[in-house]
Every structure is written in structure tokens, then in C-alpha cells.
């Protein structure tokens, strides 16, 4: 067998066979397997050609190559090196200025300086996070069944930040796996533990809780083992591992570390699943702290005034009692006050606010009411006010309506809703003879709050209804007064999230497609505040103040004393209303911040530990023997006995774990070189591929943890070593290398890699100038063909993330790492480019080459819009105002083909095209390429000249603003040409 094999010289095959035959793959006793031994730091080997290595790691590579007599490759062209580095570190194309800076040749260390800038840029964290999210199976939905939304973006932003601040690998590990168990964990350290809450969560009706809870624990177990150990623990879930020395009970001992979370098997029906944490953003935290200082301060001021005594008050009181007009006036600060006394045509006049255009939608008829006239309501009659100030669910609000129902059929009293969006808004109604109020919020989340007032109404009598809302947006914040009597709230639904701003037209009585009240409608008043209980009472004709003032001062209750005092202050102390207002606003803002603050799912331990038992055949209802926390024996040479998840995390992220450094080094190597030193990054076990360069792997792994070398777990330093090495910066097109090392196993050329999905989209955004560099925040929903979510949706009314509400404005041009990831329908613009669905941990994306990708490059509005925007920008920037137009092209066309080549190269058209080329590909086109581009522009311009409508359609792609110019067909033609540059093979690769 060996003889037969050794005769085969096909390069690929040699590589494969040597793997298969290497002692590591066959002869190993499992326990002696290389990966389970601590890494050895060998001295860098001697090499024949000392000029080549720039970094110690290069010597390991070179030694291998010299051994095999593979020729030394040249260095990559500087612009290619720059593009490679820019994508490796930032995931974005190099800026034209950087290309210029490098090619300028003024500074010998220009490349290093640019690389340092790249690492310091926040774009680095975004690029690295995009990769880490695959491992962490991060998504914005729960994944099972209805696949509703969750909020884990605070965790995602933690990851970005961790890479940006270069959190040492040990801390990076400990905080994600056990940040909650650190002494006095910070908010960020708790957020970090979302790593192991990113697994899918189920709430399908009828499912069994424990079955799914155990599934989550198993997911954490295998994901942690895969990411931090490079081992396939899942093989031992149902039985002892067939190949590696892992027994089933060892799986469950490891499982036990993750089995103690205070969670539920069925959860997540409405947003995040427990345990979760309120996790305000940094800005929100700052604002909260500010308000938390201001509110007590304002309260002190108010209390001091309320408690003070003031002889003038007695005088005021006596005056008031003495006066005949003791009757407290009705509050005068209504935003709307329709008394039904003034009718012009079908328009009702609000004497206080004549600006409101309150139109009655049918023929308006007045009849005698309780106090003057009332409006006759037929059931169809409705008063419509289009331009009415917005209501916010977080602002207090009071609605006062006096009405006389002649029928108690279900009907509307008042509403501001959006029928296009699941009736989002507010509605006051009569149902089953009860008064009710409902707030609805649509969006990814359809939530609602609905309360009814206890007690049934009767027909044919006058009602004075006051409903107040305190601005909490909660059911308990609603108060009802019917004819001055407080009515109890009956809560029907209470999952309203808010905050919501309602801007729809205000309808009183009937509304389109809604039956309105039948009977008479007298005064309607709306206040942008919460009326006090006494004020509410005033609307029934009773006057609480009068009762108090006629009571002896000494016999008043504290509440009564305060009421009078407050009334006095409002009238006499110019500052009091301002302070009071400031306090109300501050309280409202604080509440709003509290409501707006996102939650995030975290790890949190149960009070008393849960028993872990082996599950026979992995089945949840087949528990076997009880197991204790513990590491698999084979990893445990150091005798470590982590007694908690925290200790486990500390061990996993430390040099004591023989795999810690190797797995991480290999992962980053794989990321940047396209192939790991261990070619099976998911399997460092006995069945995985042995390292192609074990000394190099171990050298880097030891170096990562080497405190004396200032590395100390710095992943930026580790990557900097890799990326500035001669090995990384070799030319990727070195022909002899393909012959000697077809698979590039011996690193005899630089990597040529397909860009990751995120990079392909981000490249178009960045090169065109559309990219919006905001860091973090909730995930965004860029362009996607309509209907993709809806066709698999469960129930758009009651579940979130069933309907795709595309983002607008800046959110269309955010980096792809912020794209909303729905597991059952992964974002199309990324899935086409091999992004996974994130249901489970994914280590490597397999690049493919499909016609669907070609179609996306041809017609996805993302690329057409980017092309259009770049075309318009270039024309706007490069056009000398006088000679507008691709005058170049026109003149060329008129002067005939013989001259045009010469004319164009030196020309504006050529410069415009070269700039587009440079922005996308990071290099200038050569002459042959420029010829193709110029000819294409000319040809397309000719086509569009004949069909201006087609030009207009092409230029209307996307929502980004237009840079208008008066040369429609030339702009459209340039758009088509730029689109073709974006579609080049070179554009979606780094060479």
C-alpha cells in the first residue's frame, strides 16, 4: 500500500496521503494524542535564506519550504498586500488615500503604520465580531417554530467592543462563559455571558419543557467544547465516543457545568427568555444617572415648598371662602375643548383653539345637551381632526367626554389608529356595555394593553367620563371616573411594550369602518397631563376644594392640606409650576429610559444546584447515573478539578488547557490564511487532521500566553504577527507554488480568499460612499425582496418577526454585522454568499460559486444602488462645472472611432473609471482594462440615449438620495459600468 502511494506524485494527493499516513493519524494511542499534550515552544529553526523572514514565525514556514525545496515566492504587490490587510483587519476595502500613502514610498514603514491604524479602528471589532457570531450561533430570533424575535444585540456589541479594546484571550473566555460568577460582575461582564444563551429557544405549544431545556444545555456543552477545545464532544452525548477517549459520562460531567441555569425549557414567546438582564446602553446609563441625581433634588424643592407654612396662604383661603365664586374653575389647559356650541357648516369650533379643524363627517345636527348644545351621533357620525398633536404612550393624557348613549351596542368613542399597521395606536370603546381603552403597538412586536372599566353602562342617561393615563403605558396607570366615581380597572391584556408615538388623525364618535356611539355628545376635552382626582371630580359638578376650605384647618387630613397648599403655590409661587413640571418631565424621561433600555439574555445560576444525570441514548426521559462536575479525563493531565463554571472558564482560557492557545491560533490562522494549520478546525481529536506545521502552531500558541513577551493573551498582537509576516504578504499568484504545493499546505504562496458575505455587501457600501459607520444598536433590516418572511410566518398578529419591516435611511447602509438575523429565513443578501443560518455553532463557512450569486450581483438593489451612488458621486466630483456631461464621450463619438482611444485615456472618462476601479479593487486599471471600461460606458450611454426611461428606472434604484445632474443617460451608463466592476471575480476576492 505504502509503495503504491509513494509513487503517486499528484500534489494534492501527496498532501492527503501524507496526512493519512502520518503517525499522528494512525499510530497514536488516544491519550498520547498530540493535541492533549501541552504545547512546546521550540526555538525558531535555522534557515538558509535569512533575508526572507520578517518575523520568527516566518522561519518555521521557511524551514518547511526549504526542506521540500519549494522555491521562495515573491512578495505581494503593495496594493494587493494593502487590500489583503484591509479586509483581514477591517473587512473593508482600503481607502484610495491609503493606497496613495503606501505607493507614495515616502515612508518605509507606511504599511506597518496603516496596519496599526486599521487595528485601532473600530471597524476591526466589527469585522472580527462577524466571524465570532457564527461560532456563537448569534441571531435575532429564537429559531424554533414561529421563530420570533429576541434582543441579543447588547451581547453582539460587547463582542465588537471586546475585540476593539483587545480584551486578553483569558478574559475574553472567562467573561463570556462565566462573567456572571465573577466577584461583583459589571454590567458588561454579565452581558458577555450571552454567549451561551445564543442557542435556539422554543415555545411551541404542546412541547415538553424539560426536553428542550436539556437541549439548550447540550448545545452549550458542545458549542463550548467546539469553540474552546476544538473537540467534538457531541459524539459522546448518546454513547461513548467511538474514536476519541471520551466516555458518555464525561460528556455529562462537562454538561453539568452548564446545567445549572435558572431557565425554562419553553420560553421566548414574547422577546427574550429568562434569565435576562436590563442592559441600558452607555448613553442610556449616562442619562439615567443624570436623572437619578436630578429627581431627588427636584423632589426636595417641591417638598420644601409644600411643607412650608405661609401666613399669606391663610389670607388667600379666607378670601376664597368669602368669595361667592368659590367654585373651582374647570382646568383651563385642555389641548382640545369641544363644547358643541359653535358649528360652522360641518365644522365644530374649539373656541380656545380655533386652529383645530374638527369636521363632522356626516351632516352635523345639534340638539339640547346638559349645558347648551350637544352633537347628535347616528352611529356613523364622527368628528375628525387630522392635524392633532402626537400622543406618546409615555406622556400622561386625560380624555373627558360627556355623552348620552341611546344604544349600548359595541362601538367606538374615540380613536387614533393606523389600520395599515394592525390598528396600532389608541382606542376608547364600548364593548359588552363596558368602557374600554386599548393601546396597540405594531412592528416586529405586536403588543397591546387593554383595560376596561368595571361596571356596565345603561342606555339613555348622561355620562361624564374621565379617563386618565399616567404615562407609564401600563394598565395600572389608567384610571376611570364615571360620573365622578372611580371605577376599577379590569386588565384584559398587558404586554404593551412602548414607547409609542401616535400621529394618526383623531376620531371622536364613529370612524372609518367603525361603528360609533349612538346618542348625544356634549363636551369633549383632552388634556396633555394627568388630571388629579379632585380635578376629575370637577367634571361632575362637585368641587372638592370647596369642601376642604370650609373644613377647619386643624381638622384637614394631610392629603387635604397638601391639596390646598399645592393649589395656593400654583397661584402664588411663580417658580413652583416650573419646578413641578421639571420633576414630572424628569420622572417621565426616567421611566421612558427604563422602558427603552433593552434587555439581554444572560447566564445566571440556580440557588441550589441541579442534579445532572447521564441521559441514556441522549434521551431526556431516560436518566441514568448521577454525575459530578468534571473535565474529560484525557484533558486533565494537570489534575485540574474546576469546581464551578467560573473555574472551568478560567481553565479553558488559560495555558493549562493544552488546546486553548492552539485552537485560537488555528482559528485566526484559518480566518486569515483560508486554511488552518490544523485543517480540521472542528476536530483536534484523533480523527482530525494533524497540524501541518506543529512547531509553528505550538510556538504561536505558547507565545499567546507569554506574559514576558507583552503578549499576555493579546489577540491584536497575535494577528499583527501573522499579518505582517512575510508568509502572509507573499504573492498569491506565484506559479511554481501551484506545482509544488497545490493545496498551499506548506504556505508557499499568499492566500487568495473569497470575501465573506458581510464583506461583499460592505465593500459595495464602502466603495460607493454609502456606508454608515454607526457602531452597535438594534439590528437593522436592509433591502430584501418582499414576502420572504411572510411565506413561512406563523401568525403575524400575535408573534414578532413574522413581517419584514424594511429599515430606511441610514439603517439601509449599516455594516452587515448589524443585519437582522432571522434563523428560519437568514438575511438573503448574506445567505446567498454562504452565511449560515446560525441555528448551531458554525466554524467555517464554505465558499461556493453559484448562479444565484451572479444574479445578486446583477440585480440586488444593494449593488445597483451602490453603483448608482458611486457613479453620481464621481460625476459630481470630477465634473468641471463648465464642461458638464461626459463631454469626453460625446466628443469622442462625434469625432469617430479612430481617435477615441488616444483621447480617452488621458481624459476625464478614464479618470472617473479609474477612480471607481480604485475604490472597489484598491488598484488602478491597466490599459486593457480601461479600454474595456471606456468602451462599455460608451456603449451603455448609447443604449440609454435611445431609452431615457430605462435610464431613469435604473437611476431610481434604492432609497439613497440622488446626486442629480442633467446627464441622465451618461449617469445610467456609468452606473451599469460600476455595477460590472462590483461583479468582478477580483472584487469578491482578495488576491
Amino acid at each position, binding site marked *: 500500500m505504502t509503495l503504491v502511494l509513494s509513487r503517486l506524485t499528484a500534489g494534492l494527493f501527496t498532501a492527503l496521503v501524507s496526512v493519512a499516513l502520518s503517525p499522528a493519524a494512525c499510530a497514536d494511542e488516544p491519550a498520547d494524542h498530540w493535541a492533549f499534550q501541552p504545547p512546546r515552544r521550540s526555538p525558531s529553526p535555522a534557515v538558509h535564506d535569512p533575508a526572507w523572514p520578517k518575523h520568527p514565525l516566518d522561519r518555521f514556514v521557511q524551514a518547511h519550504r526549504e526542506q521540500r525545496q519549494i522555491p521562495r515566492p515573491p512578495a505581494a504587490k503593495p496594493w494587493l498586500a494593502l487590500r489583503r490587510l484591509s479586509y483581514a483587519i477591517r473587512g473593508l476595502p482600503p481607502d484610495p488615500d491609503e493606497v496613495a500613502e503606501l505607493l507614495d514610498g515616502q515612508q518605509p514603514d507606511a504599511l506597518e503604520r496603516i496596519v496599526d491604524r486599521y487595528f485601532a479602528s473600530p471597524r476591526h471589532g466589527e469585522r472580527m465580531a462577524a466571524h465570532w457570531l457564527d461560532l456563537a450561533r448569534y441571531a435575532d430570533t429564537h429559531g424554533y417554530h414561529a421563530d420570533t424575535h429576541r434582543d441579543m444585540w447588547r451581547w453582539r456589541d460587547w463582542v465588537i467592543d471586546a475585540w476593539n479594546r483587545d480584551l486578553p484571550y483569558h478574559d475574553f473566555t472567562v467573561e463570556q462563559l462565566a462573567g456572571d460568577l465573577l466577584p461583583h460582575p459589571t454590567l458588561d461582564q454579565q452581558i458577555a455571558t450571552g454567549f451561551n444563551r445564543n442557542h435556539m429557544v422554543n415555545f*411551541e405549544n404542546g412541547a415538553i419543557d424539560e426536553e428542550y431545556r436539556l437541549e439548550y444545555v447540550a448545545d452549550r456543552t458542545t458549542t463550548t467544547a467546539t469553540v474552546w477545545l476544538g473537540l467534538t464532544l457531541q459524539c459522546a452525548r448518546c454513547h461513548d465516543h467511538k474514536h476519541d477517549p471520551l466516555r458518555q459520562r464525561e460528556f455529562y460531567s462537562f454538561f453539568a457545568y452548564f446545567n445549572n441555569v435558572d431557565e425554562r425549557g419553553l420560553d421566548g414567546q414574547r422577546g427574550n427568555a429568562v434569565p435576562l438582564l436590563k442592559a441600558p446602553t452607555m448613553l442610556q446609563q449616562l442619562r439615567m444617572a443624570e436623572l437619578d441625581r436630578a429627581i431627588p433634588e427636584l423632589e426636595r424643592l417641591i417638598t420644601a415648598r409644600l411643607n412650608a407654612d405661609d401666613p399669606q396662604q391663610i389670607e388667600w383661603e379666607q378670601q376664597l371662602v368669602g368669595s361667592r365664586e368659590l367654585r373651582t374653575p374647570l382646568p383651563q389647559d385642555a389641548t382640545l375643548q369641544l363644547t358643541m356650541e359653535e358649528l360652522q357648516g360641518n365644522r365644530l369650533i374649539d373656541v380656545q383653539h380655533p386652529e383645530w379643524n374638527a369636521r363632522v363627517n356626516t351632516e352635523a345636527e345639534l340638539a339640547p345637551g346638559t349645558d347648551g348644545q350637544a352633537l347628535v351621533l347616528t352611529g356613523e357620525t364622527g368628528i375628525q381632526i387630522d392635524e392633532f398633536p402626537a400622543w406618546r404612550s409615555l406622556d400622561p393624557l386625560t380624555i373627558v367626554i360627556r355623552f348620552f348613549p341611546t344604544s349600548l351596542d359595541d362601538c367606538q368613542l374615540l380613536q387614533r389608529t393606523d389600520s395599515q399597521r394592525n390598528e396600532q395606536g389608541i382606542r376608547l370603546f364600548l364593548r359588552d356595555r363596558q368602557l374600554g381603552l386599548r393601546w396597540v403597538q405594531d412592528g416586529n412586536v405586536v403588543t397591546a394593553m387593554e383595560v376596561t372599566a368595571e361596571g356596565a353602562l345603561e342606555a339613555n342617561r348622561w355620562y361624564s367620563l374621565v379617563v386618565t393615563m399616567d404615562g407609564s403605558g401600563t394598565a395600572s396607570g389608567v384610571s376611570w371616573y364615571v360620573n365622578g366615581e372611580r371605577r376599577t380597572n379590569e386588565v384584559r391584556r398587558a404586554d404593551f411594550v412602548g414607547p409609542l408615538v401616535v400621529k394618526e388623525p383623531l376620531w371622536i364618535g364613529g370612524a372609518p369602518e367603525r361603528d360609533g356611539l349612538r346618542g348625544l355628545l356634549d363636551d369633549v376635552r383632552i388634556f396633555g397631563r394627568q388630571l388629579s382626582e379632585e380635578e376629575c371630580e370637577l367634571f361632575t359638578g362637585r368641587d372638592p376644594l370647596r369642601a376642604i376650605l370650609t373644613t377647619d384647618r386643624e381638622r384637614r387630613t394631610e392629603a387635604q392640606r397638601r391639596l390646598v397648599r399645592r393649589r395656593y403655590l400654583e397661584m402664588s409661587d411663580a417658580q413652583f409650576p416650573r419646578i413641578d413640571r421639571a420633576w414630572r418631565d424628569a420622572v417621565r424621561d426616567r421611566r421612558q429610559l427604563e422602558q427603552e433600555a433593552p434587555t439581554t439574555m444572560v447566564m445566571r445560576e440556580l440557588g441550589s444546584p441541579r442534579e445532572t444525570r447521564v441521559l441514556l441514548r441522549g434521551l431526556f426521559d431516560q436518566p441514568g447515573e448521577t454525575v459530578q462536575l468534571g473535565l474529560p479525563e484525557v484533558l486533565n493531565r494537570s489534575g485540574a478539578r474546576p469546581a464551578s463554571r467560573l473555574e472551568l472558564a478560567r481553565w479553558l482560557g488559560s495555558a493549562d488547557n493544552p488546546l486553548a492557545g492552539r485552537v485560537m491560533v488555528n482559528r485566526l490562522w484559518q480566518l486569515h490564511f483560508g486554511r488552518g494549520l490544523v485543517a480540521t478546525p472542528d476536530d483536534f481529536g484523533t*480523527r482530525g487532521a494533524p497540524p501541518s506545521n506543529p512547531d509553528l502552531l505550538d510556538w504561536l500558541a505558547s507565545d499567546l500566553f507569554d506574559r514576558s513577551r507583552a503578549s499576555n493573551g493579546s489577540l491584536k498582537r497575535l494577528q499583527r504577527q501573522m499579518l505582517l509576516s512575510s508568509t502572509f504578504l507573499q504573492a498569491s499568484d506565484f506559479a511554481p507554488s501551484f506545482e509544488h504545493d497545490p493545496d498551499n499546505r506548506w504556505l508557499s504562496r499568499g492566500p487568495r480568499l473569497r470575501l465573506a458575505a458581510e464583506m461583499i455587501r460592505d465593500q459595495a457600501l464602502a466603495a460607493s460612499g454609502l456606508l454608515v459607520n454607526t457602531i452597535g444598536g438594534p439590528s437593522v433590516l436592509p433591502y430584501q425582496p418582499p414576502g420572504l418572511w411572510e411565506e413561512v410566518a406563523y401568525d403575524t398578529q400575535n408573534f414578532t418577526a413574522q413581517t419584514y419591516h424594511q429599515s430606511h435611511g441610514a439603517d439601509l447602509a449599516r455594516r452587515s454585522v448589524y443585519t437582522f438575523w432571522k434563523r428560519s429565513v437568514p438575511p438573503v443578501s448574506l445567505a446567498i454568499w454562504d452565511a449560515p443560518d446560525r441555528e448551531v455553532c458554525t466554524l467555517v463557512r464554505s465558499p461556493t460559486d453559484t448562479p444565484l450569486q451572479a*444574479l*445578486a450581483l446583477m440585480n440586488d438593489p444593494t449593488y445597483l444602488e451602490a453603483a448608482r451612488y458611486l457613479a453620481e458621486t464621481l460625476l459630481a466630483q470630477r465634473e468641471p462645472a463648465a464642461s458638464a456631461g461626459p463631454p469626453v464621450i460625446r466628443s469622442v463619438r462625434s469625432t469617430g472611432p479612430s481617435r477615441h482611444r488616444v483621447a480617452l485615456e488621458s481624459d476625464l472618462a478614464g479618470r472617473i473609471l479609474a477612480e471607481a476601479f480604485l475604490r472597489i479593487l484598491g488598484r488602478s486599471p491597466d490599459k486593457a482594462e480601461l479600454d474595456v471600461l471606456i468602451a462599455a460606458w460608451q456603449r*451603455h450611454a448609447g443604449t440609454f440615449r435611445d431609452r431615457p426611461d430605462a435610464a431613469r*428606472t435604473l437611476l431610481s434604484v434604492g432609497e439613497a438620495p440622488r446626486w442629480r445632474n442633467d446627464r441622465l443617460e451618461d449617469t445610467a451608463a456609468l452606473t451599469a459600468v460600476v455595477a460590472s466592476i462590483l461583479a468582478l471575480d477580483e472584487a469578491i476576492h482578495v488576491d
Partner: protein
Amino acid sequence: MSIDSPRHRIDMLRFAERRQFLSETSRGLGLAALGALLQSTSAQAHDLPHFRPRARRVILLCQSGAPSQIDLLDAKPALRELHGQELPDSVRQGQRLTTMTSQQTSHPITASPFAFRRYGDAGLELSELLPHTAQVADDLCVVRSLHTEAINHDPAITFLLTGSQQPGRPSLGSWLSYGLGGENDNLPTFLVMISGGEAGDQPLNGRLWGPGFLPPRHQGVKLRSGTDPILFLNDPPGFDRATRRQWLDDVKRLNRLHQEKLPTAEIENRIDQFELAFRMQQSVPELTDVASEPEHTFELYGDDARQPGTFAANCLLARRMIERNVRFVQLYHRGWDHHQQINSKLPRKCRQVDQASAGLVADLKQRGLLQDTMVIWAGEFGRTVFCQGSIEREDYGRDHHPRCFSIWLAGGGIRGGLTLGKTDDFSYNVVEDSVHVHDLQATILHCLGIDHERFIFRSQGRDFRLTDIAGNVVTKILA
């Protein structure tokens, strides 16, 4: 997949090891094994088919939500006598119920109100709700003894389509795409269509046609009703074929200029994909444009087939795909989850699928395509003999039932006019010729010439099969 891609290389390494292992265990086979290995850079990294296939293409008519076997395919007329009586514990044997009916104090036997009759030469017993299906009875093989492991929709449909209740595995169509590749250069190998889908219908999930750990290009391509049947298929209005052709030629020229500088030919593949995309811009609208279909086609499939997006329209498209040699066509029809009002909802659902399903079988047959095309009509599990809700009220339904359910198969090496398997008197437990979901999957693979036990992909250090560690070919239903 590019030859130079890391995934490919990993696959190759693994493949080499596997080969190595095989060779060493059967010394002397060395050269043969090497021969196979050297060929393995083609689309199929395995020696498929393992044996002569009976079918070359598959249509799966997936009835999402789980149709009631007891009302459609598994006749139990004797239950009329027992209607309203409590289901004996001896039948249930304490088996798992969903939490939707496990709290119910009464589990009364609920006979089907629908009549069954025998049809065709073979006397296949079918419900009155399937009058058109009855017309092709002699082509159908009804399996009454299928059973599954999951009791809820998400795990059960995932199990049916991927062989595992938990997400992460490749779907059946992806396995076939990976194993057998395609036979039409202008269309994807694995196409998916969805119909139904009213509020509250059980959701679907991309993983049901997802590639799992297989290379992503084996993912099912979803064909959508409407003007853009494949994502981004349409050029912007006014960007006509000639302009697109020129545009593609420019891209090709530039790609070729770049390729001249590279020592590999990988850009050629990218160029090919653009050409395929260009051809698909023509072939897909041709495929989905049924205007040229004669009147009798619509008589066969039903009037619904004129309405894009219906199950009937999708059945017609499925036939057009099979004519064009698409390997695997998967239709999902949603809305069979009848927990309530089953007696009114079920007839409506049947009307949506009966004529078109039967029409598809008849149409394939008359075109000579049925013999090597396998058609499967199946949900993810069955429904209970007892009712959910009160039997006193008309709005009762039936709960999930994994212990037995019925499906039918036709064509592609399947024996027509056969009923396989028997359930107990209550359509509760299988008593004869039990067929597990993995057995069904093994049988489908078998008909396509694949030995399910040898059809393996290694991911994260483990060898995976569609049928996990189980599955026996159901030889009794083979023609």
C-alpha cells in the same frame, strides 16, 4: 465549490482518510480505491449511485401541519360503534401526549364522519374527501404504518426532512443534490415551492430545505410565485437581454484579463456561473409560464392551477420541473393542523390538494415520467383518534399523533395499488409492517440507487447519515 476552498480541502482530507481506512481493511482493493479517489474532485465525492436506481427524480408533496390519517387514508369504520366512548388505557399505554390534550380529563373515541370506499383494481381504501386521488388509486402505495418520534411540529417536520429532530442536519433534497448532482444545466437541482399559509398555520423554516453542514450550494432554491420567481432574477426594467448580454461580456472580458495573470483556472467557474444565471433568466420564466399549457391541463389539475401560488399551480410547475430533469422538487402545503373544527376544515383543505395531487400523478404517467419519478404525499405525523375539545361540540379537532400516520407514494420504483401496514382498531399503534421515518428515508434513497448506510458526510469529527444510525429499506413497497 471552488477546489481551493478550505471546506473542499477539509472534505478531501477526510475523504482520503476514509479511503485509507477502507483500503487498509480490504487490502488488495488499493488501486480501485485510488481510482475512485482521483475522480472524486467531480461534483460527487462518492461512488454514486451505489446500484441501479429505480427513480431519478423525486417530488415530495409535504402536507405541513399533519393531515388526519383517520379521516383520509386509514379507514376505521368500526369506530362508529365506539364513538364517544373513552379510549381504553390499554391502547394508549401511557404514551406521551402533547400538553394540549394531556390535561384533558376525557379522551373520547371520535369516529371519522367521512365515508371510505375501495377504488381501483386493487381496491385501495380511501376517504370520500379524496375523490380525485381515488382515480389514480392503482398507481398509489398507501403506507398506514408510518410512525415518528416527535410529537410537535417543529421537531417532527425537521425529523421528516432531515432525519433529526434537532436542527443542524442537511435536508433530504440537499443530500440528493450533494450525492447525485443535477441533470439540467439551466436550472437548480433542488427546487422548493410553498402554498397555503393563513394566519396560524404552522410555520415553515429554511432548514427544511437547508444544506446543514453540506456545502451551501446544495441548499434548495425556493421558487416563488409572482414576477420574480428566483431572487434577483429580473433585470431592471429597460435593461434588455442585449444590454445584459453586453454587460456580461464586459464582466467576462475583465475577468479574463485578470485570469491571465493568475496561474489557476478558478475564475472560469465564476464566468460559468454568470452564464448560467443568464440562461436561468430565460429558463426560469419559461418554466413558470404556464400560458402555453393547453386547456385540458387545467382540467386535470383543477382551476386553481391558473392561480399562481396555489398548491395546484405548484403541482403543475412540479411536473414542468420534472420534464426539465430537476432532481428534487419539494412542495409544502400549509394548514393541516386541525386542533379545532376538523370536520369543516379538513374537507376544505382536501379540496385544495386532492385534484392537483392526483392530476400530477396522472400527468406524469401519461408523459412516461412516473416510472422514474417518485411522488410522495406526506405530513409530519398523524392525528389522534380521540378529540381535542369536547365531542359534544361541533368545533372539536384532533391532536398530534406520532405513533402512526398514513402517507402515499407513487412511481419511481414503488408498487402501485398496494396498502402496506396495519394499525390497531383505533389507528393508534402500528400492529403490522411498521415503518419508521428513517425507514422511509432509507427507502427513498434506495429507489435513487443509494445505500443509506454508505451515504456519509463527516462534520465536526462525526460521520452523519440522513438516516442517523437506523433505517431499513421497506422492500415490500418496491415494484
